[in-house]
């Protein structure tokens, strides 16, 4: 098992003929994702180099392929529209890779699409190694296994996954939730899924400064999954307050969003916080060993 996506998830790509869309369609296809087609208005009837059918609308794509999952690569002005279109056509899972979606459009689309799981926007997507990869993550760093990974970052996640894989710790599902202030799926929602996933026996959580997602995750862990081996990492410990470093969401404002608050919350929940990414595999192995001997 895995969370959100598996071998059978039928995935379409919105913006499949665009530069990013076609590049990553090819990579997902080669990874083994069950891609069934894509959408570019006006290009319906064409085929991609991988032989995937292109449709004019998501509804046509869903009707023809039975797709349930979508991966969105359209430019920022069209991202919310793409999500509404997917929702209306009955899609139940959408990874929105697009960076730069106006936050009030994300607010509205997230509120208006109950029942559709949205990852992102401004996220690298997710991967269930050996089963499916939806988004832009580099497939070769993954290894199938029992560690769930959830992260607000993109490249840092690959770094962490790479370290886990090199340490022999394979992954169940790895989710990049996105770096924007408002995102469709947060840490707690991923943790809830991991809790119910039999494949996932441990979790790595890569947070960063800004917001209170990490604090809420810590509270959730303390209450609902105190015994699962979990290790956290907080990026941006050396960031100054008042200025977001890259991610719009990574900002310490006033007394909110500081690394100290997040680290304290995790420690109170019994979750060790790695000082650097390279410490994560060791800390996790310790926690796994402790559970095994209990």
């Amino acid at each position, binding site marked *: 098992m895995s969370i959100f996506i598996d071998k059978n998830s039928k995935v379409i790509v919105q913006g499949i003929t665009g530069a*990013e869309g076609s590049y*990553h369609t090819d990579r997902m296809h080669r990874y083994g994702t069950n891609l069934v087609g894509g959408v570019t208005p006006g290009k319906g009837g064409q085929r991609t180099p991988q032989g995937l059918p292109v449709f004019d609308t998501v509804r046509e794509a869903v009707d023809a392929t039975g797709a349930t999952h979508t991966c969105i690569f359209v430019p*920022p*002005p069209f991202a919310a529209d793409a999500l509404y279109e997917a929702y209306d056509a009955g899609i139940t899972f959408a990874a929105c890779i697009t960076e*730069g*979606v*106006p*936050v*009030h*459009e994300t*607010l*509205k689309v*997230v*509120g*208006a699409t109950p029942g559709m799981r949205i990852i992102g926007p401004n996220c*690298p997507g997710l991967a269930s190694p050996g089963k499916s990869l939806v988004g*832009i993550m*580099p497939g*070769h*760093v993954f290894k199938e296994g029992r560690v769930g990974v959830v992260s*607000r*970052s*993109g*490249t*840092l*996640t*690959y*770094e962490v996954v*790479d370290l886990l894989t090199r340490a022999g710790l394979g992954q169940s599902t790895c989710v990049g939730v996105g*770096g924007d*202030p*408002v995102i469709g799926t*947060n840490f707690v929602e991923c943790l809830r899924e991991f809790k119910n996933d039999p494949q996932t026996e441990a979790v790595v959580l890569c947070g*960063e*400064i800004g*917001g*209170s*997602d990490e604090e809420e995750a810590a509270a959730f862990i303390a209450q609902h999954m105190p015994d699962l081996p979990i290790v956290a990492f907080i*990026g*941006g*410990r*050396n*960031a*100054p*307050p*008042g*200025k*977001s*470093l*890259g*991610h*719009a*969401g*990574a900002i310490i404002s*006033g*007394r909110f969003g500081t690394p100290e608050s997040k680290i304290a919350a995790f420690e109170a929940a019994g979750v060790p916080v790695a*000082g*650097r*990414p*390279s410490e994560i595999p060791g800390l996790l192995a310790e926690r796994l060993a402790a559970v095994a001997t209990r």
Partner: protein
Amino acid sequence: MNLLEFQGKELFKRAGIPVPRSQHALTPHDVAAFLEAQPGEWVVKAQVLMGGRGKAGKIKMAEGAAHGRSVAEEIMASPMPPNRQNPSGEPIKSLLVEERLEIDKEAYCAIAIDRAARRPVFIVSRFGGMDIEDVAEHHPESIVKFFVDTTIGYSPYIGRELAFRAGLDPGYRKTFPAIAGGLYDLFFRYGAKLVEINPLALTADGRVIASDAKVELDDDALFRHSEFEAWRSALPLDEDELLAAGAGVGIRNFRRFPGTVGTMANGAGLAMATMDAVANAGGAVADFLDVGGGANAQRVRNCYELVVNNTGAKVFFINIFGGITRGDEVARGIVDAMQQTASRKIPLVIRLTGTNEEEGRRILREAAMTPVETMDEGAREAVRLSREA
């Protein structure tokens, strides 16, 4: 993009939120000319993004042309005093000359985004005119919130409920729902992240009026409003943001620090972790720099020059983990950039992995650059070199 008071009030006007009569003035001469024709006492307010204008003596009363001119000169003579977040203060480029209000009560009303609830949230308090964080500390019970369901949007009962729950003076009740509605309208129409009226004044003659205006627009939404381009270019970017814009990276993507290890990574999370890694290795970073996706030669060269020419970097640590960014392209970019740049050369430490990493490393080796294997190794090597240099 944070707006200046006069810009925020312009948006308030468009949304039907009452604001004092006012005139934006660029010079003391403009102030004098305006007051020449306008009898009575007016308020002259420095237009800056920093808080604490009153305490800094940047808000003053004036009556008549001569007085207005001297008050304006006084205010503009010196920048806002520095604080921790604005270590070089803020120059005063313009003034707002505003109707003097006889204020009876001051309340607070704002809309922000609640990240956890994923909803816009109204925040209202019967205590206005002071920092809301201070109100939260001293009168936490006075702060009431309302999380708006965006599928329904604003309806006047929300304003009524807020006014009653916050215990606003009855003088506010009649107009508050329309003002809150205007604020909500503005929030979505212009794509704001924060809209704040502090204080929302109840005047002696019974008017409810926005005495100050704080509006933070979402940079990502600006493309829908070309009308704000002029404001954007007039806004005080800080020096780091100006440098970032000049190098063609996002204004959030670059920030300088006092250390000697220059850093660059792809992705904000990795860039932050790279800074942290340098700190862990005992070094001090010279900058935060997210090169973004698609790091071609031009972009890598711009970033290299940005760091070499504007920070105290003695070494440049490039940390690339490929997802969208392809290792071979970055490697070519680095090689080309170093051939093309006219800036002085400092040692490079290159960590390159992820998509097309073998090809990237081959390209680097062919150009006699030796990539390191891990981020920690790279950080240690960079710190070592920064001490040697």
